[in-house]
């Protein structure tokens, strides 16, 4: 008996003891709870994302109530209430008090909470920092009671711990309300709850958000349209996007009798001919039972898939915001002189359909000497952190912005009075980490962002070129006008004209000048021209100290 064996047993026991909940409790930064400020935002973000997804799934125009109550000593009570379809009683404890529950594991459907840990992580965070249970109330329809739970998570077993379970009358026909007490920090600024909710409203014009911040100020973001976004369809995964682990899991749970049946029913765009080609390369039989396929064979299959030509997945499962609504949103936020928006056709990366939409706002009251402001969105969710690590930023930096009338040192963001908004919709948005803050650098995605921005950039270039031309022309005209009085004086001296004649000369010279050089468009910024602009709205989320302005690069949290 080796002493090391004993040690190994001991270690194995210890390792088993660390449950999934405990692991996450110890690694909260992976989930967006790095610091108190971010913890508050992440909690609200998870809850709002869930509410919006649920409403849209049920075809209900969302109305979300967000309230943050300052309970002193860095403690906050967060209450989020929606008018969604509600949750059936049995599921409530698991959804809110079990990590990784109901994870949309291999379901491919455009949604906000597509991946990641969900609201239960917030419940756990609150419990860890305040010792308090979270309260959930949900009602699924008229005539039904509202169920009210007090919940905690057993961090060792990752199972819901039900503190209380009751029913209550709720005047609302249906909806869900959650209340979490947690340790947090409330601050305004570019990465604040205020900014997050506002940006959410910008890209979700069908949503009404009523927000009461810890200072008891109520902000209402009313919906701008009653039209719901096109409902996104769930699609089967495409073989090109499947990873080994997922593939193995799918083989394990499939009811299919043969590999060929498995492939053709569980994946999109796979025909028997495609299966035959995969099998030939991987050297397996199409009629083998899925559960009998060895790990080695799975590896061969996954390797074989990219070598076989498979049709791209259908892309009609994507629900874009549309260029028009995107532009409307940015107009509300930024008072600029020029706007452009572009919605690309859907494209595919690694078997996953995605679609890029961009909007540009140029000039106006934006600072001229600072880097462009970047607003990033994924599936209608604002991304406020890790701008530097994001594929969107990389795509912007890879574009030469000079032809569009901006300054830029190579490889950097452009400098000038510009806001760049980029939205990616996808059945599976590839984030660089579970905290869903930065988009992964897939070449197909970067290329689409680049193409969209270049298209918008070309119309911007037309505008800036015209503006530069008008500016040059104005300079010339004012130079000419500077000397016109001397022409008049010269003529007056030679011909002995009187004051009235001189004035007539000046008037006529102006007429001649305009007739000769053409009428000039007024390119001066008119702050009242943009009727969508809402000054109060634009102020939301801004630091109260006046020295931080928009357009400044947002600081990312230390990583």
């Amino acid at each position: 008996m080796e002493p090391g064996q004993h040690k190994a047993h001991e270690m194995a026991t210890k390792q088993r003891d660390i449950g999934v909940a405990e692991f996450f409790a110890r690694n909260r930064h992976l989930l967006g709870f790095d610091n108190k400020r971010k913890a508050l935002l992440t909690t609200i973000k998870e809850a709002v994302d869930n509410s919006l997804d649920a409403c849209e799934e049920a075809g209900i125009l969302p109305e979300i109530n967000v309230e943050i109550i300052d309970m002193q000593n860095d403690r906050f009570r967060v209450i989020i209430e929606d008018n969604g379809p509600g949750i059936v009683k049995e599921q409530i404890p698991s959804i809110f008090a079990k990590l990784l529950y109901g994870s949309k594991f291999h379901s491919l459907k455009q949604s906000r909470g597509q991946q990641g840990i969900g609201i239960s992580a917030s419940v756990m965070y609150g419990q860890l920092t305040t010792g308090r249970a979270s309260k959930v109330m949900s009602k699924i329809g008229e005539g039904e009671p509202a169920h009210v739970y007090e919940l905690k998570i057993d961090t060792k077993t990752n199972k819901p711990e039900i503190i209380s379970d009751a029913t209550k009358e709720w005047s609302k026909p249906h909806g869900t309300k959650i209340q979490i007490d947690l340790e947090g920090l409330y601050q305004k600024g570019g990465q604040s709850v205020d900014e997050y909710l506002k940006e959410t409203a910008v890209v979700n014009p069908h949503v009404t958000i009523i927000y009461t911040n810890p200072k008891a100020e109520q902000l209402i973001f009313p919906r701008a349209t009653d039209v719901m976004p096109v409902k996104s369809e769930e699609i089967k995964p495409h073989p090109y996007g499947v990873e080994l682990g997922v593939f193995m899991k799918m083989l394990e749970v499939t009811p299919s009798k043969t590999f060929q049946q498995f492939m053709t029913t569980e994946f999109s765009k796979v025909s028997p001919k495609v299966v035959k080609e995969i099998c030939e390369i991987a050297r397996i039989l199409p009629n083998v039972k899925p559960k009998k396929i060895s790990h080695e064979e799975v590896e061969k299959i996954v390797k074989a898939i990219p070598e076989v030509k498979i049709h791209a997945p259908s892309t009609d499962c994507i629900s874009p915001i549309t260029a028009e609504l995107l532009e409307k949103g940015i107009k509300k936020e930024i008072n600029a002189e020029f706007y452009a928006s572009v919605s690309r056709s859907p494209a595919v990366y690694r078997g996953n359909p995605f679609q890029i939409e961009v909007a540009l706002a140029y000039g106006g009251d934006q600072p001229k000497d600072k880097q462009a402001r970047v607003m990033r969105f994924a599936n209608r969710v604002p991304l406020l952190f890790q701008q530097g690590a994001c594929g969107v930023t990389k795509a912007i930096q890879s574009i030469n912005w000079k032809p569009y009338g901006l300054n830029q040192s190579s490889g950097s963001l452009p400098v000038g009075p510009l806001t760049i908004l980029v939205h990616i919709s996808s059945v599976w948005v590839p984030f660089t980490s579970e905290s869903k803050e930065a988009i992964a650098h897939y070449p197909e995605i970067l290329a689409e962002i680049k193409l969209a921005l270049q298209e918008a950039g070309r119309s911007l270039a037309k505008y800036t070129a015209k503006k530069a031309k008008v500016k040059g022309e104005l300079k010339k005209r004012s130079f000419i006008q500077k000397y016109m009085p001397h022409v008049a004086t010269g003529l007056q001296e030679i011909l002995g004209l009187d004051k009235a004649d001189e004035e007539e000369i000046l008037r006529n010279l102006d007429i001649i000048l305009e007739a000769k050089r053409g009428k000039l468009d007024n390119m001066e910024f008119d702050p009242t021209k943009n009727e969508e602009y809402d000054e109060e709205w634009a102020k939301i989320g801004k630091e109260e100290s006046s020295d931080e302005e928009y357009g400044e690069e947002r600081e990312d949290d230390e990583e």
Partner: protein
Amino acid sequence: MNDVVQDIKKIAQQVYDHIKKAKPPALETPVRSLSNVAFDKKEGFFRIQDSVKRRALTASTIKSFAQTLRMMGLSKELVESDDTATKREAYYVSKNWGDARFSEQPESDSVMDDIEAMLRVNREQLGFIPGEHGGAVAGALTVIDHDFETKKEIKIDCTQFGSGAYSIPSSVEHLKFETKAKFILAIETQGMFERLNKHNYWKKENCILIAMSGVPTRACRRFIRKLSDEKHLPVYVFTDGDPYGYGNIYRTLKVGSGNAAHINEFFCVPQAKFIGVTPDDIDDYHLPTHPLKEIDLKKIKDLLKNDPFIQEHKEWQKALQQMAKNKVRVEQQAFAAHGLNHVMEIYLPEKISDAKKWLP
């Protein structure tokens, strides 16, 4: 005199009429450069051609358009009050024209020249006089001028200046001459002029000495022309043997310049002959030389390629090519290598008597 005022008014009236009818106004002045002259073989001078500059309500010409009108206004005022202003004074007058002021005198001089060219008069008729010295005269000549106050005649005997000289005034039209001299010798440098004057060369040869001190001024050119025409005197020119002496000093004296092309007709001396120093003289008189600089060679190339006068005369092309080939130049003073009086005792008498060795 009143003709000039009439002309100024006429041009200003045309501009004014255009403006009154809301039509774009413009002034047109002849282009004054070698590119806009042709050598008039019959008359023997550079005649101005038809290219014009247009000044109007454009960003590139509005300033000079306004300045031209204001300068015309100043000229009218001067002529009407029988006053004059030097070119320098005119430049200073512009300093209270606000934005239309000139920043350097060459700018105001140029506008002045444009007005001359436009009106086809010379600047003295416009009331402007040059600031510079017109040239020095010594020898067998009496100049008849008058006192400006009493209008009484003054006779100036150019033999009576000792080692000094009579100074040519900026305006020479009113002068009259008495002389029995045989020829006029126009000399490039003041130094050579003084040597010849001091040693009474003019007495010995019965001639009139004129120092040009570089490129002759308009007054100097006009003085020589008038004197030569009225007294039927040949004009001999004596410069350094270098591209500047040939292409600038002699050429300008004889046929005029590009810049003042509009008045060349009166401000040139087509009868002038070049006696030296020629490239041949270097060998003939064993003269010490200096190597040509890069800029001299460039100047020779430019003269051969662009100067209508040189292009008209094979002899000059030959001389310049010879100089370019030998890569040397020679100064008037070089004759001192053979003794200080070699130039007046040997060189000048020999060259003046041998027309075959002249250049046209």
